[in-house]
């Protein structure tokens, strides 16, 4: 008897084809649209990532869970790892938005950023999962908001007239002295050539040199960071007027070169939750100070779970306490 891979079932083949067509046309396959439309019409069970406490709060505020929705984009980096991240997340955001519209939702809440920790060449999957919700008495939104906060926080924000509306990404990289001319965007920006800066840096980092800040490297690194933050602001400006809960990832890499001072690559990614807040609005609730009599736990100290764990591991690498 010979082992043979099972022949693909015809319906599986049809589904695969439907996905391919959908991705190509920026749409969804019909079976997904049907499921979500059914959920919107109240057929079948609703699905929510909310805890019972959150469900209670959602009910008192007229928020109804509809369906779990997601957006995935597996993206291979071509020329730029850094910009690939921004593009990958944008694509995933677009796709989760499509599913939310299909579910007739007003918002997707509890959106989490995920990735599989695989090492398949230069690529990464960018995934967003969340719960599509409807607000009682409102028509379905043509542009549902993508909120990275769970229901508990969503309600608190809405009461203070703040709407979490989406995710913004800022990503930049630069070379300080590169073998590849196409990457030389930094050279001369501050009135000096990168070669002079590289030689100064090389001199300052030899074994005999004493205490000193590496000014050229700092200026270079700061410029990248500022540019990434400017990107973040620009990306946020089209959706709201503020960004909360940043996550940052930065790397400065040295590249040794033959008969030349080493070159440096800096890359920086910032991701945050965009909010649409009325400026100077008052917080409607009174705050009462309580002392919890339980040991070890206090509601004031209870850390909320991080919403984006994607960069956590890398960001904390090599980083020491103070």
């Amino acid at each position, binding site marked *: 008897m010979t082992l043979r891979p099972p022949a693909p079932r015809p319906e599986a083949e049809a589904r695969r084809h439907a996905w391919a067509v959908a991705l190509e046309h920026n749409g969804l396959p019909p079976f997904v649209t049907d499921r979500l439309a059914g959920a919107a019409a109240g057929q079948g069970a609703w699905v929510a990532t909310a805890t019972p*406490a959150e469900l209670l709060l959602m009910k008192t*505020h*007229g928020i109804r869970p509809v369906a779990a929705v997601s957006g995935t984009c597996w993206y291979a980096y071509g020329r730029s790892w850094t910009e690939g991240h921004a593009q990958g997340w944008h694509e995933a955001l677009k796709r989760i938005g499509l599913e939310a519209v299909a579910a007739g939702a*007003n*918002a997707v809440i509890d959106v989490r950023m995920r990735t599989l920790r695989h090492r398949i060449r230069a690529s990464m999957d960018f995934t967003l999962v969340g719960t599509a919700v409807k*607000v009682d008495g409102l028509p*379905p*939104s043509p*542009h*549902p*908001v993508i909120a990275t906060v769970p229901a508990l926080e969503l309600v608190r924000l*809405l*009461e*203070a*007239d703040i*709407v979490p509306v989406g995710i913004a990404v800022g990503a930049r990289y630069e070379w300080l002295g590169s073998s590849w001319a196409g990457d030389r965007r930094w050279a001369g920006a501050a009135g000096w050539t990168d070669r002079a800066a590289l030689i100064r840096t090389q001199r*300052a*980092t030899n*074994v005999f*040199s*004493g*205490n000193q*800040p*590496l000014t050229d*490297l*700092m200026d270079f*690194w*700061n410029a990248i*960071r500022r540019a990434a*933050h400017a990107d*973040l*602001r620009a990306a946020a*400006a089209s*959706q*709201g*007027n*503020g960004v*909360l*809960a*940043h996550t*940052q990832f930065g790397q400065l890499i040295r590249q040794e070169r033959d008969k030349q001072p080493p070159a440096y690559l800096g890359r920086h990614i910032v991701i*945050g939750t965009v909010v*649409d807040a009325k400026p*100077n609005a*008052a*917080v409607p609730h009174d*705050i009462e*100070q*309580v*002392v*919890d*009599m*339980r040991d070890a*736990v206090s509601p*004031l100290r209870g850390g*909320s779970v991080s919403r984006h764990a994607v960069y956590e591991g890398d960001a904390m690498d*090599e*980083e*020491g306490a*103070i």
Partner: protein
Amino acid sequence: MTDTGPVPEHALKRLAGLRRAGHPDGVFTSDFSVNEFLLVRKAGFEPIGLCVGSCIYHLGFQFAGWSSSVELDVLSTAMYEARALAMERMRQEAKEMGADGIVGVRLTVKRLEWDSKILEFVAIGTGIVHAQGHQGFKGPRGEPFTSALSGQDFWTLLQAGHRPLEMVMGSCVFHVARRGMIATLGSVGQNVELTNFSVALYEAREIAMERMQLEATQAGAEGVVGADLHEGSHGWSTHVIEFFAIGAAVLRIEGHTPEDLPDPKLVLSVNS
């Protein structure tokens, strides 16, 4: 709550997709959590932007004798100066955006894998300004104040009648002497205190604390809250330790009387 329901009309419009206007001018950025954001607002402040300062620093070399317990002042100076530079850059960014001060400052040290003598110091915090109807305050010399307090701590500190002034710190890198051969042999199999180690740790910690306290006094602070002492070895040899003291220097808010202090309620929550 209003009679239109718990969620304001303005927010509902956004959820219905009826209002989608971006705000091309004035986007604030901050790494606040939702709770921090709400409490900072409640305290009468608005975040305006994330302030970051970083300093990439090359550490000099210092030799310490095998059997001497001494402060490595080259490293102490380096560790202090690099942090101060990072903080200064952060404060400069805050000044440029017109902030009253910075809260939630996190100070980290990052080792760069390609050179053990280079450390990157990063200070990140959120610049805030006082909202209308609040008189606001600043740090020493009219510069933005800095503090490592979270949004929750910031609100509570103000309720307690104090305001943050400046982050203060002190650093001391110490070389702990190795014990001599004869002393080691003499104590084989016995329970003894390694006095020279005890003394070295005491001394190093004391120096770091003294430096922090001096800095607070010079800034004109009344006291320091949240003082903490970190021990760290940033990839150095085993007998070299850094003691780093950090805290938030605070000042009394004028006109705040003991009657203004809230009386906290005791609760026992059942959802543990």
